[in-house]
Every structure is written in structure tokens, then in C-alpha cells.
């Protein structure tokens, strides 16, 4: 369960000539039924929380009372923060905060509320300044010597007062808190998992006590993230990517938002999100490029993920049977069949994520029969080799099976041990401290202690992943499932089973040596 909190008190866009209009009176005219912004948002969050909590100014409270859920009236920023602290204290669920003037895609709400991060904020980065050649302009002063500043630039009506790194919010400021090189705004939606709710409540209460220090341009969510970051909570970031979000506070903005949103393909974004991000090279370029469309087709035909898994299993068994014939035609057919068995294996997961049909049994079926498919093909190949008179390769099949099983177990065991290690805490800094230099110094120190010796080497290797060639080579060397199925399909169709098994054993051995080296070093570090 997730508790939704609608924030009815966002500041109007900075510098907007138009007067603030509450979202209940902003009509989304070109949508069917011409709902108000508030109607639409209430309808959307109902899928997450049927009784959302609204924190509203007294003048707007009546708009919220006519809709489901509770309403807390608050006259000012301090009241907002206190109301939020109360809500966070009471909640034993995850919290999802969103400004009540938000115009947002359903899919974006879904993706943010399903994130694994302990806290996740939707952000927009400032575009980097570029010179006439399109090269980013380097600052004259290196960041180590930069002065923290009270951000005065404005982006999308919000003050640029946050600094984000590649993965998280590093520092946030306010009219009182200075930030080194602010580069982003916090758009508003914020998801906080239950384990950080108490911290959020504490932070909100402390911020309420210093509300007189903040300016009218300081946004509620910006302040909350400031409180979280100063308390050492890792707040993850994500951009809008291929989805739409905007705050609206006037009819002109609402009209613009609807017009802009019409240019997005929400279904396509949902489909793209159904494809796992971290797949290997072969899967990414030779399967995922089109498997998502099979997934969408299957969803529209009403196929369940488990039915697709069964198709994949059937293809795998057919492939093994084709290999077992020991003929060239059988080998080619087997190669094609195993390739499509793998395609449908990807489709079932994508279908489950796209159609949001997850089952315990489905996850198990998928994982278990992935293994079964691969190993039944080994058996088919070994039989085929004998039938074709190409020799007894069962011993190689035994070795290939053992190597693959043990390699998997190496992954699993290391994963378990890795999870035992307590995370290295982020530095904290009292909210009373006005500039973020101590935070920066502490982060620098944290980085330094984590970059000595073996760690430095590992860090360097991690950084090398920025180069595409290194990134993909590193993914291929570990011989993930896509590469394995491709290697089987190609070598079996073109050569003979012996070559297939030798490929599997040698590539698998290299992969094991590579991952073991990295993990042994990591255990040492």
C-alpha cells in the first residue's frame, strides 16, 4: 500500500504574470469530459490510494472536501510541513507526494511508486551552458573551490536550488541554505518508502520550526528533500524521460500541458518500461528490439504471461528434439527454434510487466524453465551427435551443465553475501548549518576512503563502463543468457554439437574467471 499526499500549496510559477488559479478550477478542455486538473489527479491516484490525504490552503480546502479522502487545512508553509510530518508519522506505508496542480501520465505515477529506491524524486536538470560550437562551457572555478550559493535561476517556474549527481540528490538549498553549483529542480512527485517515513516526519517538523527563514519561492517538496538529504537519506532521481509531467497554476498552463501531453505516446512508454534495462548485448540488439511488440500483441489478445512461458517451453523442447535428429536440417531448425524459445522467454517477462500481471508462480515457472530449456537442449545435442556419428559428447555435456550450474550458484552466493554488507552511510549535516560545504567535504572524505588500493582499481573499472565498447564487452564476457542461447543456436546450426559444448565450456570458464576475479577483489576491498 502507498499513502498519497496531495500538496495543495505549491508556490505559483516564479515570475508568472497570471494570477494563481486552484487546480479545481483549471479545465483540461481537450480531454474527454473536460475534467478539472484536480478531478483528473484524484482519478489517477485512486489506483494507488483510494483515500488520499490533501494538504490545502483554507480557500481551496472546499474543493478537496468534495472528493474522497481526508483534507488538512493549513494557512502557511509551516502548517504544510507540520501536516506532512503528522501524515508521515501515522503512515506505516510508503508515501507518495504530488502537487495538486500536477498534470501527469498514469504511467509515470506507476513507475515512480514502484521504484526500488528508498526515496525517489522526479527532477529536471538545467541544460548545460554551451558555447557556439555546442561544447559544454567549463566553469572557470573548479567545483572543489566553488562557493555555495543561494540559487537565483528559474526553471519551469521553480528555483534551481538542488544539486544532483548521476543517481541521487547531492544537496538542496533554500532561501537560507546555500548549495554548491545547483543544477536541477525537484519537480514535485516524491516517493518515500515506509522505512524513511519517520526520518521524513522528523525533518518536516524541524523545517516547520525554521519556516520563517524560507522564501516564497521555496517549494514544499524541495524543502522536504533538503531535510532528507541533510539527514543522510539517499534520495534517488529520475527524469521524466518519455513521459509528461507539469505543474499548472493558470488556465494557460493547463492548456499548454494538455497540448504538450498529446505529443507523447504513453502506451509506448509503458511498453519500453516493460523491457528490462540491464540486459546483455544479444538480448538488447537482437531480441528486445522487437520482442516488446510481441508482448503488446499478446497483451491485446489476452494471453497471460504463463501461456507465453508455455509456448517458450514447447519451442525449447522442439528445439532439443530437432537437434536430436542429428541431421543438418535438424540442427538448423533446432538453432532457429532455440532462438525463438529465447525470444518468447523475454516476451513473457515483458508481457508481465506491461500488463502488470505478476504472479509468484509465473516468476518461478519462468526462471525454472529457462534452466530446463537450456539443459534439455544440451541433452538433445548430445543425442544428435551420437545419431550423426560425430562421436560421444555426453562428457562435454556433463561438464557444460556443471559449469553453468556452478556459475549460477556463484552469482547467487555472492549476491547473498553482498547483501549482508551494511551500506556505507551518507554524511549528515544539521539543518541549522546554512551552507553545504561540510556536506561536500564529508562526501569527499567518503569518496577518498573508498578509493584506496583495490577499491581504486575497481572504481576505475566501473568508470570505464562509460565507454560503450567497454560496457558491452563487459556484458558479453560474463556470458549472459542471451549470448548463451545465441552461441548454442549458431554453433549447433553451423558446426557440430562438439563445437557447441566446447564454446559453452570455454566461454563459461572465461566468464567464471572474470567474475571471480572481480568479486574476490571486491570481497577484499
Amino acid at each position, binding site marked *: 500500500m502507498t499513502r498519497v499526499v496531495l500538496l495543495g500549496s505549491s508556490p505559483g510559477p516564479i515570475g508568472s504574470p497570471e494570477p494563481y488559479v486552484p487546480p479545481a478550477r483549471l479545465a483540461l478542455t481537450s480531454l474527454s469530459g473536460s475534467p478539472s486538473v484536480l478531478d483528473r489527479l484524484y482519478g489517477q491516484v485512486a489506483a494507488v490510494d483510494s483515500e488520499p490525504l490533501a494538504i490545502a490552503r483554507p480557500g481551496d480546502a472546499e474543493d478537496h472536501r468534495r472528493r474522497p479522502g481526508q483534507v488538512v487545512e493549513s494557512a502557511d508553509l509551516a502548517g504544510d510541513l507540520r501536516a506532512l510530518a503528522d501524515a508521515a508519522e501515522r503512515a506505516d506505508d510508503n508515501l507518495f507526494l504530488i502537487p495538486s496542480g500536477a498534470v501527469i501520465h498514469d504511467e509515470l505515477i506507476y513507475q515512480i511508486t*514502484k521504484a*526500488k*529506491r528508498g526515496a525517489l524524486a522526479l527532477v529536471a536538470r538545467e541544460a548545460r551552458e554551451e558555447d557556439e560550437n555546442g561544447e559544454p562551457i567549463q566553469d572557470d572555478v573548479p567545483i572543489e573551490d566553488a562557493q555555495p550559493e543561494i540559487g537565483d535561476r528559474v526553471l519551469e517556474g521553480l528555483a534551481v536550488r538542488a544539486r544532483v549527481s548521476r*543517481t*541521487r540528490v547531492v544537496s538542496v538549498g533554500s532561501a537560507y541554505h546555500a548549495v554548491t553549483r545547483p543544477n536541477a529542480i525537484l519537480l514535485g512527485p516524491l516517493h518515500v518508502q515506509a522505512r524513511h517515513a519517520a526520518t521524513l516526519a522528523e525533518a518536516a517538523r524541524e523545517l516547520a520550526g525554521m519556516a520563517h527563514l524560507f522564501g516564497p519561492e521555496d517549494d514544499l517538496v524541495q524543502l522536504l528533500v533538503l531535510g532528507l538529504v541533510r539527514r543522510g537519506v*539517499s534520495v*534517488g532521481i529520475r527524469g521524466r524521460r518519455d513521459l509528461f509531467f507539469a505543474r499548472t497554476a493558470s488556465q494557460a498552463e493547463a492548456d499548454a500541458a494538455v497540448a504538450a501531453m498529446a505529443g507523447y505516446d504513453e502506451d509506448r512508454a509503458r511498453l519500453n518500461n516493460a523491457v528490462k534495462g*540491464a540486459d546483455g548485448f544479444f538480448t538488447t540488439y537482437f531480441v528486445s528490439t522487437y520482442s516488446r511488440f510481441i508482448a503488446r500483441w499478446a497483451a491485446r489478445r489476452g494471453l497471460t504471461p504463463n501461456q507465453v512461458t508455455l509456448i517458450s517451453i514447447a519451442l525449447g523442447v522442439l528445439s532439443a528434439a530437432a537437434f536430436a535428429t542429428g541431421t543438418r536440417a535438424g540442427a538448423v531448425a533446432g538453432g532457429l527454434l532455440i532462438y525463438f524459445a529465447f525470444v518468447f522467454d523475454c516476451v513473457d517477462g515483458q508481457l508481465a*510487466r506491461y500488463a502488470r500481471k*505478476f*504472479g*509468484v*508462480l*509465473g*516468476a*518461478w515457472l*519462468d*526462471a*525454472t524453465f*529457462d*534452466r530446463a530449456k537450456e539443459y534439455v537442449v*544440451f*541433452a538433445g545435442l*548430445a543425442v544428435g551427435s551420437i545419431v550423426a556419428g560425430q562421436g560421444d559428447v*555426453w*562428457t562435454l*555435456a*556433463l561438464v557444460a551443465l*556443471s559449469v553453468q*550450474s*556452478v556459475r*549460477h*550458484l556463484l*552469482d*547467487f*552466493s*555472492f*549476491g*547473498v*553475501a*553482498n*547483501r*549482508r554488507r551494511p551500506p556505507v552511510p551518507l554524511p549528515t549535516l544539521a539543518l541549522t548549518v546554512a551552507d553545504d560545504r561540510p556536506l561536500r567535504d564529508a562526501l569527499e572524505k567518503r569518496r577518498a576512503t573508498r578509493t584506496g588500493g583495490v577499491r581504486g582499481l*575497481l572504481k576505475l*573499472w*566501473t568508470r570505464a*563502463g562509460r565507454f560503450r565498447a567497454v560496457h558491452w564487452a*563487459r556484458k558479453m564476457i*560474463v556470458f*549472459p*543468457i542471451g549470448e548463451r542461447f545465441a552461441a548454442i543456436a549458431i554453433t549447433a546450426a553451423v558446426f557440430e554439437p562438439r563445437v557447441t559444448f566446447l564454446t559453452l565450456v570455454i566461454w563459461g570458464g572465461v566468464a567464471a574467471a572474470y*567474475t571471480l*576475479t*572481480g*568479486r*574476490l*577483489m*571486491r*570481497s*577484499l576491498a
Partner: protein
Amino acid sequence: MITQPQAAPAVADPDEERRRVQTARLLAYRDDGPLVAVLRDRMGPGLPPVPAALASLLAVVAAGVTGVLGDGSGPAVLLPVLAMVVLVVPTAPRDHLGRFDWLVPPLIRGTEFLTIILLGLAADTPKWLLFVLIYVVGYHTYDTVYRTRQSIWPAPWVFQAGLGWEVRLLLLGAGAALGVLDWVVAVMCVYLGVLFAVESITSWVRLDKQASPAQASDDLEASPEEAMEQATGEADKA
């Protein structure tokens, strides 16, 4: 004995709790059986797991290379089995909290598979039968991993009835010594195959009916590094 982590009283410290659960999983991956259950508390402090498991792997490799297994019958075939049992059973009482102890389950499983292959090849057991046996044992390991990942622990009796790596190897060694390895492998394939398949399928189906839907993100195959990065945002590639 595998202790079921979710049965424990609530622990205040989440780090401590996480360490306990993950260590229980690591111990479950070892797949110790009834012999270890009997001896665990009678072996004192035990042997350090990684060196002992490595030594046993080397001993089995040496047995394979030197050809002491001969034609796969007679008391000599018990050598690799006994070497592994003597070296690795005493590692069971250890807490497995060492920084390299994640190597132990794959070392045990690898040595077990290697021993099965060497014994079977020496005794000329049909290789497809060996293939089935390794697949069945592997299936049980995968199933343990997938189940503990969803916090659905296999009942302790499954590990006992599954005989554990040590009793499986002792039975295979005895069968080979007496010249009946084919039969032992065949019976073991059928027995373990039925046991693991029926037990696992019935529990998953039961669970599917009563459980809340799995999480969107429950990816049973994500690599450990990727899972970590998703949860913490810290890239940590090996």
C-alpha cells in the same frame, strides 16, 4: 538443519536482521543433509570453510588425474568421496560470515558434480543418467535460491529427505565400490527427481494461490551487482 529466518522474533536492527537472513540463505545453498545435521553440534569449532572446500576440490581433481579410480569399483573409488566428506562436513558449524565464505556453496556443488562425473565415467555408468542426476541436484539448488529470494523457505525436512551432498556422495561411493553404481544413480534420479519436483511444485502452487502478487521488480535472474545498483543507485560493477 536449516533455520527458517521468518520465524525469528522481530529484531530492532535492520542491518543485523539482514545479515542473519542472508547468512541463513548462504547456509541453505550449501544443501547439507542428515549426516551434517547429526554431527553439526559434535564437531567443536570445525574447519575454516573456504580452505577446506578448496582442499577437497583439489583432492577430487587429484583423484581424477592420477587415475586411482581405476575401473570404478573396489574401495579406491571411495577416496574422493571420503576426502570431500572428511574435509567439508566439519565446516558446517562455522558461521560463514567470513569475507570469502560466499565461495563455499559453489565450491561444494562443483566438487559434488565433479565427483559424480568422475565416479560415473570410471564405472562406465550411462552418461545420460549422470546428466539427469546432476540436473536434478541442480534443480534443487536453483529452487532453493528462487524460493528463499521470495522468502518462501523450503521446509527443513526437504533438505533432510534430499539427503544433502554428503549422503548422496557416500551412497554413490558405496554403490561404486560394490559395483552397482548404475543402479544407485538410477534409483537416486527417480527418488530425488520425484521428491524435489513434487515438493517444489506443490509448494509454489499453494503459495501462488494464497500469496500476494509478486513484485514488479522480482527478477529472479538479475545479477547481484545489478540488483544492488537498482536498490542503492551505487554502481558497483566487478
